[in-house]
């Protein structure tokens, strides 16, 4: 039986894993390669590295870092941030990443999805999507709207419709981040996660809002999501990979040992 996946997200700035903390801005918490290798040893199923300043600085993602990760981490990992075109995708994949994650770029230029899927295979292309509840309207029938550029720009696109369109264009996986839940530590946004997970036939990763292991068990018992993304709950030592996994197991979720 296919296990549900626990994924750790590492935001990277200047080769340091960083995390936004309320009222304090970003604080650096460690080396991406060392942290990735440690989480892998602890039994996490997958890793995501986001080069969070690449887009703003209009430079490609840090390829040397990706190569370094690939020499030390032997579980699947994806890389996002600073992907501007097909050549950037190729560089990331050849450097050893399993998948490449695109977000704003895909909304502004959906053709990059089909081009990427054709060149490298659907399984390599992850769509990152930021969605926010704005109320049901004719334009936004699900009530959830797609935002880009880190949640700063509303696109007038319905989140469920965008997920279906992206799937039809060839994405292999969708990582859905709820802007409303992100940073609250009050649990994932289960409504939109389940709606999208049921609307598409590619795996859906839930992101934003995880604060305690029960949130992850809840996600899997109440929605059709395939994977859970966590960050601060493990970065600051509040919980461990095995602690979260044992909570998942206790809730009857299929988990990799």
């Amino acid at each position, binding site marked *: *039986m*296919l*296990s549900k*996946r626990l994924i750790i997200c590492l935001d990277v700035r200047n080769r340091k894993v960083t995390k936004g903390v309320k009222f304090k801005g970003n604080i650096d918490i460690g080396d991406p390669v060392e942290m990735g290798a440690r989480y*892998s*040893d602890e*039994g996490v*199923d997958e890793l995501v590295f986001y080069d969070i300043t690449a887009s703003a600085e209009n430079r490609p993602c840090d390829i040397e870092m990706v190569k370094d990760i*690939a*020499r*030390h981490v*032997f*579980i*699947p990992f994806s890389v996002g941030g600073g992907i501007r075109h097909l050549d950037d995708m190729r560089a990331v*994949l*050849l*450097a*050893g990443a*399993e998948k490449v994650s695109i977000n704003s770029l895909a909304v502004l230029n959906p053709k990059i999805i089909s081009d990427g899927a054709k060149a*490298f*295979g*659907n*399984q390599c292309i992850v769509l990152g999507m930021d969605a926010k509840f704005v109320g049901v309207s004719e334009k936004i029938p699900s009530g959830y709207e797609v935002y880009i550029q880190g949640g700063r720009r509303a696109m007038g696109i319905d989140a469920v419709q965008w997920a279906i369109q992206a799937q039809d264009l060839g994405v*292999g*996986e969708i990582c859905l981040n709820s802007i409303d839940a992100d940073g609250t530590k009050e649990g994932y946004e289960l409504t939109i996660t389940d709606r999208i997970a049921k609307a598409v*036939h*590619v*795996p859906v990763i839930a992101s934003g809002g995880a604060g305690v292991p029960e949130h992850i068990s809840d996600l899997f018992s109440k929605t059709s999501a*395939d*994977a859970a993304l966590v960050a601060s709950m493990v970065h600051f030592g509040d919980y461990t990979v095995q602690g979260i996994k044992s909570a998942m197991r206790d809730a009857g979720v299929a988990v*990799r*040992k």
Partner: protein
Amino acid sequence: MNPIIVVDYGAGNLTSVFNALSFLNIQAKVSRNPEEIASAEKIIFPGVGAAGSAMQVLTNIGIGEAVSTVVKKGRPVLGICIGCQIILDSSDEDGGVPTLGLLHGKAVRFKDEPGLKIPHMGWNQVIYTKEHPIMKGIPDGSDFYYVHSYHPLVANENAFAETTYGSQTFQCIVGKDNLIATQFHLEKSGSIGLQVLKNFSSWNV
């Protein structure tokens, strides 16, 4: 000891396989030279992507024949993912393509079933049907990492383990004599994947 040759035919996971061997301090060399491959003492045959395009590259640069030579010489050969499918007689992918024919069988697609996502991607349990030296020390039922839409189908006597996805149980370790192949990705399966690579490096047929 002579290095393990990792066969380079443009497969996407080549670097990951090489990185894993380097991490384990196992002597390895990447090669696309047919003569060098044919005279290797041990080879790993990696792969991701589609069987059709992989076969085309293999034939064009004469590597397919070199791999066959190593198998016929009785030297250890390990196939991974597409490398596990290309050793068979044929693949149903891309409308049907003849493959190397080093092991009787073919690669078939998962059957569609409601709610079943294809490709089969993620961690799934490997259940032994027979012992094999490369799996020594790995507990039965361990999770390995998969990404694939096709899987091998061979005679039971040539299968060593199976995995269940949806309602379908498929063979995930196949081989015969000095030839062994895994459908799952050893280079992405964490410490147990590395252990299998280590076992292969010390396997004497």
